[in-house]
C-alpha cells in the first residue's frame, strides 16, 4: 500500500492507511452490529398504539418509525422540526439557555469535526485510487476550521464537566451512564489537541518529542473511532440518533 495516512509526517513516522482502514472497519462493524441489536429490540414493540407486539425485527422498527413520521395528525411540519428542534435544538433552549449553549457547542463542534474528518478521509481515498486530490493541501486548508470547531467542542465539554462537578443537583443525579459519555468525549478532545500540538510543535504538544506524534495520533484516532462510532449503540451516545428520531416521530414533541 503506497498511500499513507497523515501524509504530513515524514516517511518513517507515517501511520499507514491500512491501519486506519482496519480500525475504521472494525468500528463500523461493531456500530452496525449494535444498531441491528437495538433495532431488533425496538422491533419487539407494536406497529401502533394499543396493537399487539411484533416479532423483534429491525424492519418492523424502521417501518413503524417511517409510518409515524409520515402520519397525519397534530404536530409541526417535518422541515420545521428538522431545522428548529433538531439542528437548532429549540426544545433545550426553551428550558435552559445554559444547557442549550453547552449542548449546541458540543453538537456543532462534534458534527463539524466529523464532517471535516470525513472529507479529509475521502480525499485520501481519492488520492489512493489515482485521482490528484492533494490531501495535504486540503489538510492545510481545513486547519483553521479544524481548530475553531475543536475549541467550540472544548467549550461545551468544559461547561459539561463544570456542571457535573459543581452544580449540586446535577452532580447528585449523575450516574455512570452519564459519566462514561463525558469521559469519552473529554478523552477524544484532549488527545486530539495533544496529538495535533505534538505534530505542529504548539502549546498543546506539552513539549513532547516529535517522534511521539504518530502513536499519539493513532491513539486519538482509535479512541475517536471507538467512541464516535463503535460505542454509540451501547451507551448514552445512542441519544445522538434516538433523540432526533424521537423528535421527528413525534413531530416536534408536545
Amino acid at each position: 500500500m503506497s498511500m499513507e495516512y497523515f501524509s504530513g509526517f515524514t516517511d518513517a513516522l507515517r501511520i499507514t492507511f491500512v491501519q486506519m482502514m482496519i480500525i475504521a472497519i472494525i468500528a463500523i462493524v461493531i456500530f452496525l452490529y449494535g444498531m441491528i441489536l437495538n433495532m431488533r429490540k425496538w422491533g419487539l414493540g407494536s406497529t401502533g398504539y394499543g396493537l399487539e407486539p411484533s416479532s423483534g425485527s429491525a424492519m418492523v422498527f424502521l417501518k413503524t418509525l417511517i409510518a409515524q413520521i409520515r402520519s397525519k395528525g397534530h404536530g409541526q411540519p417535518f422541515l420545521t422540526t428538522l431545522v428548529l428542534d433538531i439542528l437548532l435544538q429549540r426544545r433545550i433552549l426553551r428550558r435552559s439557555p445554559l444547557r442549550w449553549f453547552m449542548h449546541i457547542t458540543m453538537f456543532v463542534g462534534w458534527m463539524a469535526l466529523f464532517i471535516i474528518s470525513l472529507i479529509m478521509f475521502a480525499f485520501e481515498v481519492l488520492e489512493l485510487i489515482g485521482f490528484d486530490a492533494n490531501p495535504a493541501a486540503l489538510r492545510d486548508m481545513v486547519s483553521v476550521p479544524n481548530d475553531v470547531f475543536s475549541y467550540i467542542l472544548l467549550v461545551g465539554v468544559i461547561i459539561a464537566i463544570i456542571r457535573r462537578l459543581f452544580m449540586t443537583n446535577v452532580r447528585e443525579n449523575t450516574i455512570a451512564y452519564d459519566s462514561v459519555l463525558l469521559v469519552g468525549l473529554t478523552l477524544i478532545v484532549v488527545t486530539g489537541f495533544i496529538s495535533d500540538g505534538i505534530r505542529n510543535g504548539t502549546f498543546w504538544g506539552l513539549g513532547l518529542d516529535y517522534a511521539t506524534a504518530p502513536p499519539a495520533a493513532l491513539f486519538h484516532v482509535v479512541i475517536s473511532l471507538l467512541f464516535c462510532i463503535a460505542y454509540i449503540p451501547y451507551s448514552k451516545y445512542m441519544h445522538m440518533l434516538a433523540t432526533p428520531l424521537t423528535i421527528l416521530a413525534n413531530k416536534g414533541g408536545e
Partner: protein
Amino acid sequence: MAKGTPSINTNNLTAVQLMELDACTRCGECENWCPTYDATDKLPGISPRGKIKRWKEYMSKSHGLMASLFGPKQISDEEIQQFNDDLFQCTTCGVCGTVCEAGINTIELWESLRANLVKRGNGPYGKQSMFPKLIKEYHNPYMKDQASRLDWVPEDVTISDNSEIVYFTGCTAGYNQQILALATARVLTKLDVEFSMLGEDEWCCGSALVRTGQQHLEDTPREAARHNVDALKAKGAKKVLFACAGCFRAAKVDWPRLLNEELPFEVVHVTQFLADMIDKGKIKWEETINKTVTYHDPCHLGRHVGVYDEPRKVLQNIPGITFVEMDRIKDEQRCCGAGGGVKAGIPDLALGVATSRVTDAIKTKADILASACPFCRRNLSDGKDKLGADVEVEDVIVLTAKALGLSVE
C-alpha cells in the same frame, strides 16, 4: 417465572416508544415540573426520568445484548411491582412530555406501560381495579341507574328529541356535580340553542379505563365508544358539546383511535362554543361578577388537546371580572392532581397536588379559582378545604350561567 423467560414483555408498547427509552438524555427537566414528584417531596421512584431509566434497564436485562447472548437476566416480582406502584402515582398530566428536551410522548408512554403491567397482573392501583367492572355493568363508574341520567333536568330546560347539537353530560356532571349539567343546559337554553341529550343512552366515555391502562379489559372502552358514537349519530348530531374535559379528551382523541375511524360529528368543548358565540355577538350578559378570577387549565382540555384561549376569552368577557394568571399556565400548567386515576386510587396524593395548585391561585390574590372540568373542580375544592383557603373554586360554565342571570340551584 421460568429461567430463560424474560421477566417483562413489550405488550402495548410501540416500536417507537421502545426507542424513546433510549432517547432520554436524563437532563432532569421533567423532575422540575412533575406535580406528583413535587407533592411527594421528590420521591425518587416517581421521577419521570427515573421510570424511563428503570424500564430501559428492564428491557436490557430481558431483551438486550447480554440477554440475547447469555439469556435474560431475571427481575424480581417485587421490583416490578414497585415499578408498577410508582408508575400509577402519576396523573398522566403530560407536563413531563411538554418540557422533555427529547420530545418523548410521555403521556402515551405511561399509558402503554400501565397497560403492559395490567396485562402482566401487576396493575392497576387500589380502587382503580373497580373501573372495568363498574363501567361494564352500570355504564358509569358511580353504580348509578342509567334511567336517572336526566333526573336533574328542570322544567325550564327544553331538550329536543333530535338535534344537530347534542350535549354529552358525562357521568360526573350527570350524577355527582349536577350544578355543572344544570348550568350548561340553562346557558344553552338561554342562548336559544336547540340541543338534545342521550339520557340513558349515554355511556361512560371510557377515559378512566384508558388512562389507567385498562382499555383492553373486555374491550369496554371500545364498546362504550361504539355505543356513544352510534347513539349520537342517531340523534342527528353534527356538533357534540362537552363540559367535562375528561370526556372531551376521550371523544376527541381516544374514540377515533379505539374505533379506528373519523367521528361523524364535531367534538367541541362548551368553552369553545361560548367563545364562538361571543365572537358572533350572540351573548348579552345580564349580571356583573365583581371578582378577581384566575383560571386553571385542565390537562385534558389544555395540554392534551390544546384548548387554552377560549375559556380565558369567556372569563375575560364577563362584566366585572378582573382576570389574573397564575405562574404556571397553559402548556406549563400544574395539574390539579385528580387525573390518571389518582383521585380514585391514591386520594392523598391527589389532595397533595391540589393543595399546591390552590396555593398557586392564592398567590394571585384571586377571589375565584375557575376551571372547566368537574374533576378539577372537585379536587381543587378538596385542596381549598384542606388549606382552609379563602378562595372560591368554580367552573367557567357556572360563572357564565350566573353572568347570564341564571340560577344554578
